């Protein structure tokens, strides 16, 4: 049933301090809303449990994308359009720029925000594996102060995070140390435009003298949370890439992921595709490293 707007309240403090004051005074009462691409879908369907919303769209402190010598700091309400059109993001963080271009159509990219995607915590979100492989760090703020949390520790279970009820994601920092890496990302869905992934891999790596020096792998839609493949990475470090390795890679990966059958795919298909994508990435890593 369609929601009745008179049952809901939406306030616009217009500053970060104002938003945090509300969250601090009544921590469980307020649901932050930025571009509305998740919240308004639930609202329109009459399925939004929260009746009190606080507007982040007009909070300038959350909109900035700052470039420092060693990192970039992305304000939580930077939109997908602003990310994919940003020169440094496109050049140094192509996995994030590409994922931004996959997230909905242009209208949703103009409204959907990176912080919103993180807080919504869908394991199928396409930008989240990219944040995992780039070693993103989140700044969480409340009136109590701020704390930094490695993004890989943010999700604790399906739609569960370490964010306290009075806290807000303020920004996402990415270290600028991956420019020499070979990157790979591929989303497998029912079609290219506007389809939610069945499996999505973001990967980057570096080879010297034919040996893997560093490799980061993260998958979406194969577990209750966006998943960094720590054990598969450990297996690959200091190895030479050869097809004889691929069987072990697939077996290790299967131990790490926890895919399910749902409306979009099956656990069996996801497992097979996840292995294929990692093997395809290793092929690209070999080919591009040989060329350079």
């Amino acid at each position, binding site marked *: 049933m369609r929601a009745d707007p008179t049952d*809901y309240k939406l306030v616009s403090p217009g500053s970060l301090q104002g938003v945090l004051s509300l969250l601090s005074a009544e921590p469980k009462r307020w649901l932050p809303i930025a571009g509305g691409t998740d919240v308004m879908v639930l609202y329109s369907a009459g399925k939004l449990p929260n009746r009190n919303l606080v507007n982040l769209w007009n909070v300038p402190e959350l909109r900035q994308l700052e470039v420092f010598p060693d990192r970039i700091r992305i304000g939580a309400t930077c939109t997908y359009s602003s990310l994919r059109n940003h020169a440094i993001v496109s050049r140094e963080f192509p996995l994030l720029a590409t994922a931004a271009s996959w997230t909905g159509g*242009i209208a949703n990219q103009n409204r959907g925000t990176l912080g919103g995607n993180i807080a919504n915590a869908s394991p199928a979100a396409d930008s989240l594996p990219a944040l995992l492989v780039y070693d993103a760090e989140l700044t969480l703020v409340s009136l109590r102060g701020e704390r930094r949390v490695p993004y890989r520790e943010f999700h604790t279970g399906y739609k569960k995070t370490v964010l306290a009820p009075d806290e807000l994601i303020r920004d996402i920092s990415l270290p600028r140390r991956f420019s020499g890496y070979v990157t790979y990302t591929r989303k497998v869905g029912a079609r290219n435009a506007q389809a939610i992934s069945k499996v999505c891999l973001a990967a980057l790596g570096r080879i010297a003298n034919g040996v893997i020096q560093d490799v980061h792998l993260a998958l979406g839609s194969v577990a209750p949370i966006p998943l960094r493949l720590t054990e598969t990475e450990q297996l690959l470090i200091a190895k030479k890439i050869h097809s004889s390795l691929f069987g072990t890679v697939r077996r290790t990966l299967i131990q790490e992921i926890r895919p399910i059958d749902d409306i979009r795919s099956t656990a069996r298909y996801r497992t097979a595709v996840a292995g294929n994508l990692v093997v395809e990435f290793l092929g690209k890593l070999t080919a591009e490293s040989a060329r350079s």
Partner: protein
Amino acid sequence: MNPSHEARATSTVSFAVNGELRNVRVHPMERLLDVLRNELGLTGAKEGCGEGECGSCSVLMDGLLVNSCLVPVAQADGSNVVTIEGIAARSLLHPLQQAFLESGGAQCGICTPGMILAAVHLLEKKPQPTPAEIREGLAGNLCRCTGYTQIFEAVAKAVQPRVAR
């Protein structure tokens, strides 16, 4: 004020619509789409899916294409909104509208306002788009009649300089 009474309170939202300043007395969580259609009588934006998938409610907000079904009207306060009704210059159709007419880019017409606004947005960002860029620019707009070929042709036609036609 108790919470339920508070929630029922309306507020005034002021924004420019097609170049004209409008003040509307609304509930902050009303959808921009409903305010445009019901309060301002601008029925060009259509409700298709109501969940941001189909693009038939597309409008421009501060020059950016948005799905008006996903915008609480309070977030439009102080903004500049353009709907399909504001695209033509009086009786002179916008080049994209003319191209849609000439190419048969509209069948039932439900998707057409959103398609045209998505194309306006695209050509403002990329005045000479490739065919792939046209498809991407319109990827968030669905046509239930599946007349995509004529729609893409219409956009390509509008890109060509008027003098060359």
